[in-house]
């Protein structure tokens, strides 16, 4: 808790704002005759400066489409993305280029995301070939390259090696150095440690944490590993079939989930510490429905043990923890202007008792 409070700087404006973003893909016709796949269905989120937002959800829930939209690799059908109040989809030429500099990405697979025919130095300095204004002379570029290598814990001499000569963890460091080359303000980390072995994973997580403290960069951290998300994020957004169904501070979402899906997710993830294990585990029936034919009303109702008639008829609105019948202690220090740190869930029947089997037995 104290760590969370310490890191909360008041008056920190939201850097990235996503409002009602909808993205539909056209696919070949499904069984029901639908050929429109709604990957994102009204996404709202914001990321503050120097903050880490975790994005969790099962495969197919739209996490990667959201990341691609934020990288301007997909154009949303409707809704807006703004960074510092600027809408990148209305920008052109130089302005667009300078916007792109501010948002960078680190990919999941350090073996596939580095060109094997380039040296580490070429890979890290390649962004400067596009963003020519950043480091004009070759001496400047060389100095910056050495600085970046040192920043991610590699040696300056490593610049001449090719990716095959590095281990998985070192390759991911190169990927991070490449993302940092343009001094971004936001880095999207798409499963940055899931391809790494446990002993190496901790090294990379520590590096990401140190870099954030040094540089004040914001992260969007996409992962399916809940213990990692819990360790590195300030706030968490839980996605299910193209919608964010619960948001809140990491502690609220993990300790006191409101949405039954979040509760099931937390309960299902294996825990090392026997004391942290639920006495009885919530095991959901079935699997994620096809995003081509999402259930009517609440998307989660087909797997939810609390579902009633209203859940099929009506999409749930956002409800706060207080509306779920919980006593919420006021925490003024946590409130940041422009940032929704309330604990919200889209559910008709949010869990009144924090998670666990008691709630499930109702």
């Amino acid at each position, binding site marked *: 808790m104290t760590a*969370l409070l310490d890191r909360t700087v008041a008056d920190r404006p939201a850097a990235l704002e996503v409002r009602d973003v909808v993205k539909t893909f056209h696919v070949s016709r499904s069984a029901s005759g639908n050929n429109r796949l709604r990957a994102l269905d009204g996404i709202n989120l914001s990321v503050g400066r120097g903050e880490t937002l975790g994005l969790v959800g099962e495969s197919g829930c739209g996490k990667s489409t959201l990341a691609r939209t934020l990288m301007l690799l997909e154009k949303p059908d409707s809704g807006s993305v703004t960074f510092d109040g600027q809408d990148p989809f209305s920008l052109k030429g130089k302005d667009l280029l300078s916007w792109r500099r501010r948002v960078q990405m680190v990919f999941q697979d350090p073996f596939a995301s580095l060109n094997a025919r380039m040296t580490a130095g070429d890979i890290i300095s390649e962004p400067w070939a596009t963003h020519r204004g950043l480091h004009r002379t070759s001496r400047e570029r060389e100095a910056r390259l050495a600085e970046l290598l040192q920043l991610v814990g590699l040696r300056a001499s490593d610049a001449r090696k090719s990716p095959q000569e590095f281990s998985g963890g070192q390759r991911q460091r190169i990927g991070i150095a490449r993302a940092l080359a343009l001094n971004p303000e936001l880095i999207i980390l798409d499963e940055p440690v899931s391809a790494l072995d446990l002993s190496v994973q901790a090294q990379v997580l520590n590096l990401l944490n140190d870099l954030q403290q040094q540089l004040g960069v914001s992260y969007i951290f996409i992962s399916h590993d809940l213990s990692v998300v819990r360790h590195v994020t300030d706030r968490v957004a839980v996605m299910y079939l193209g919608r964010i169904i619960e948001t809140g501070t990491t502690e609220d979402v993990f300790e006191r989930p409101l949405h039954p899906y979040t509760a099931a997710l937390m309960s299902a993830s294996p825990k090392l510490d026997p004391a942290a294990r639920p006495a009885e585990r919530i095991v959901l029936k079935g699997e994620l429905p096809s995003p081509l034919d999402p259930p009517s009303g609440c998307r989660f109702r087909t797997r939810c043990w609390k579902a009633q008639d209203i859940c099929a008829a009506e999409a749930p609105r956002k409800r706060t923890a207080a509306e779920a019948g919980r006593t919420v202690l006021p925490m003024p220090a946590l409130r940041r202007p422009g940032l929704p740190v309330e604990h919200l869930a889209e559910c008709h029947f949010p869990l009144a008792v924090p998670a666990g089997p008691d709630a499930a037995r109702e």
Partner: protein
Amino acid sequence: MTMTSTAETSAGRTAACPVVLRVEGLDVDIRTPAGTVRAVSNAGFEARAGQTLALLGESGCGKSMTAKAVAGLLDPVAHVAGGSAELEGRDLLRMTPKQRRKVAGAELGIVFQDALTALNPVYPVGVQLGEAFRIHHGASAARAREQAVQLMRRVGIPEPESRVNAYPHQFSGGMRQRILIAMAVALSPRLLIADEPTTALDVTVQAQIMDLLRSLREEGDMAVVLITHDLAVVAEEADDVVVMYAGTVAEQGPVGQVFANPRHPYTKGLLESVPVDAERGSSLASIPGSPPELKNIPAGCVYQDRCPLAQAVCRQERPVLREVAPGRRAACHFSDSLATASTLEEIQP
């Protein structure tokens, strides 16, 4: 909505259960252009009926290679160079191919990690599930299909009668994994090897598959060898654990004891690398460096380059896997000091 108790692990049960698989001194060599390298060196463990033994380790540590050697499924470039693997008293490694085919499926089942590549895409799942009955029991096609439907029902595939003629691509990842498990347990084998059975699956589906494996194990009193890199899965599912590093067994014993009080610095380092409720943003303990390549495994202890305890003796002499407590073995020169110290820094060898 179903509720299940989380797995219980008790050391007390161990002694009572008969040993199904006993692996001793297993060596596996791989031929490479640069010469022969040893991928598994002197591995040994016992899997007991009705219990789960976890082979735990990072990629390249030899855990899958060990299991493949036991199952007789090694790549052509790899071969068993020594040791034995006895399944209920008979050495699998010394069987003729004909004897092996009789054992495969009937006494030893295996579940692979990637269900999409492990299933044949051009045959309906019913045909693939029924194969075991046709080959081993000489069942007719119609009878095999009937038994395939029963199997599908047993592993929780909805509407098995209508799904039996569907092809693998028509199933979701979790359902495909259920089909693979059904194939492996079709003939009620004594031993089930599960190679990372849930790594490709989402966490809610992983919980379902682990439930299924546990109930099948109890039903058939099978011995399960679970290969995984996930410490939390081991903590929840396994009775005993074998921690492997660079082709050797670092430590083994009952999961509860090994995780509560590791006797090898590698196990301790792994456990400390897991972000468990550590304070947000706090620095995680990590093991420096990365595992050695198979062709450069150092003389002496295989873990010396990353070990905070490494001394001169570790560079000269490879520690043997020896008993450090009843039912527990570790391969470290300093495992006795680890028994009492709470942090690695406290140890002054």
